[in-house]
C-alpha cells in the first residue's frame, strides 16, 4: 500500500498519474488496463481538485493505492465539502450531449469495475481487475 499527498493543483495531474502507472505496471500486463486506470485516476484527481477542493491550494488531494493479486484499488480523497457522485447527470442523454463538462465521473463508472464515493470520508474508491 502506498500513500501520496498532492496539492490541489491541476498541474500535478501528470505527475500524480505517473506515480500510479509506475506502481501498477509490474502487475498490469494489459496496456488497455493501464490506460483505463490512468484515465480514471486523472479524471478522479481533476474532480477532487475542481469539485471537491474547489481549487483551494490549502486543501490536499490524498491518494492511497492498494495492489491486490488481481486488481488495484485507489482511494482519491479530497478535503472539501464532497459532491454527489451517484447523481451526476448522464452526459450521453441528448440534452447533455453538447455540454462541455460532466464526463469525468461517467468515464470512471464506465471503465472501472468498482467506483464509489463516500461523502463522509470524501474519498472516491476505484478498482480495476487486471486482465490476464
Amino acid at each position, binding site marked *: 500500500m502506498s500513500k501520496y499527498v498532492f496539492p490541489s493543483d*491541476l*498541474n500535478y*495531474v*501528470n505527475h500524480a498519474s505517473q506515480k500510479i502507472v509506475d506502481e501498477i505496471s509490474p502487475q498490469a500486463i494489459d496496456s*488497455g488496463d493501464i*490506460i*483505463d486506470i*490512468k*484515465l480514471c485516476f*486523472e*479524471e478522479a484527481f*481533476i474532480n477532487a481538485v475542481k469539485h471537491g477542493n474547489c481549487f483551494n491550494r490549502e486543501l490536499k488531494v490524498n491518494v492511497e493505492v492498494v495492489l491486490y493479486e488481481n486488481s488495484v484499488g485507489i482511494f482519491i480523497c479530497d478535503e472539501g465539502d464532497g459532491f454527489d457522485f451517484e447523481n451526476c447527470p448522464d*452526459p*450521453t442523454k441528448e440534452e447533455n*450531449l*453538447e*455540454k*462541455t*463538462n460532466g*464526463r*469525468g465521473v*461517467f*468515464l470512471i463508472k*464506465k*471503465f472501472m469495475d468498482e467506483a464509489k464515493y463516500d461523502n463522509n470520508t470524501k474519498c472516491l474508491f476505484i478498482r480495476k481487475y487486471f486482465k490476464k
Partner: protein
Amino acid sequence: MKIRQSDINGIKVLDVEGDVNMDNSQELRAVLKQLVKDGVKKLLVDLSGSNYIDSSCLATFIEMRKKMNEIDGNIYISSVSGKVKGIFEVSKVDTLFKIFSSKKEALEQI
C-alpha cells in the same frame, strides 16, 4: 503533445501526436480557436498519433464544433482507434462528429 498544421486542398489539417489531457488540452483549444478566428471553414483533426485522450479533450472538440457551426464551418476527425475510439463511442461524442477511419478517406470525402 505535438500539433502539426498543414493545408491540403483547402482543408486545414491538424495532426495531433501524443496524449491529449487536462495538462495540454488548453494548447489544442488555443490552436483550434485561432483557426476559427482566422476563418477556417474546413478543419480536420487527425488522431492517428494519439492513443490517449480524456474528458477535457472531448470538451475541447465539442466547444470547437459549436464555434465552427457559428461560422458555418465544420470540424472533422480522423483515425481514432483503440482506447481513443472507445472513449468517443462510450460517451456518444462520436455521434456529434463526422469521423473518418483515415486521413486519406477524410481528404477524399470532405
